[in-house]
């Protein structure tokens, strides 16, 4: 089986209200990805939230290289999580976590 290439993305989640937990944020990206691109794309994306600082709103996510654009577009499209309005900002992408530092 051919190994899929991963991509890592460093991001900032700007918010206007209460803190967003890791679980809430991860679920919001999954729902947005599912709604915009469908179940197969969501399954193939291999999206995973590597690290997330709820206080600062910064973190790193990983996904399949082929699905990177769709994962980012889905995250950018998130308008609110719970009662908190948010704005997702992709900062830097890399093939390795070390490349982000």
């Amino acid at each position, binding site marked *: 089986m051919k190994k899929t290439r991963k991509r890592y993305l460093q991001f900032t989640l*700007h*918010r*206007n209200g209460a803190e967003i937990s890791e679980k809430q944020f991860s679920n919001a990206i999954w729902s947005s990805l599912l*709604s*915009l691109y469908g179940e197969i794309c969501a399954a193939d994306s291999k999206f995973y939230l590597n690290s997330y600082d709820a206080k600062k709103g910064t973190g790193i996510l990983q996904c399949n290289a082929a699905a990177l*654009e769709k994962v*980012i*577009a889905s995250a*950018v*499209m998130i*308008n609110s999580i719970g009662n908190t*309005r*948010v*704005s*997702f*900002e*992709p*900062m830097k992408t890399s093939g390795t976590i070390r490349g982000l530092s």
Partner: protein
Amino acid sequence: MPIDLNVRIPGSERLGEFEDMAGRLGITGIAPSINLDEPVVVSRKGLVLYARAVLDGKRIHSLKKELGNLRRRAVIVAFPLAGVETSNWAAEDRRVDLLTLGEDNIGSTLKESTAHMAEHSGTALEIQFTAILQSAGLNRSRVLKGFRESTRIALDAGMKIVLSSGASHPINMRSPMAMTYIGFMLGMNRVDSREAVFNTPQRIVERNERKLSSEFVGPGVEIVKRGGNREKD
């Protein structure tokens, strides 16, 4: 220098919130909906504000009159896509900078003939993505359909595209990098998308600032040096 050419600030007292958000996102200029004293104003926080006017007449006669009044006062003149006749008029007129698609005219799409006219006159298609952010499910699908179709028609005709937020709340603004991914979602490639976010808005603003300066006489004619009235001996 990324510029958001459409920010719908509800009142001048809330300008500070939008300035802060633009600063956090790395946006250097915005074209707000509020009235400005001058066509170009630099705010205390260093953000450049460009006066934007939206043509809201329903008939060509009233639109022409409105355009004549607004052109010297605004850096950006936009016309929301509507009927074929008025859209074609706006597309042909070089004084109109943007044909707009957004929350207020979701059902409208860009016609091929309009796109070709706009390409000749240098008018760009403006897509306000707040309409996508604020809809969900089938409604969002309809919005995306209209936007993607218009994007394809504009690109096929060689018309320029501008991505703007149309945000009425600071949190609805997106960073320039995030906007390029919205461009991908609308069917643009990497080059077109970056062009729509970084270069085209900048070029429109620069062109119009030049036109609004006192040195500008007409297209291709500018005063480069003023001579005195000294007589030869």
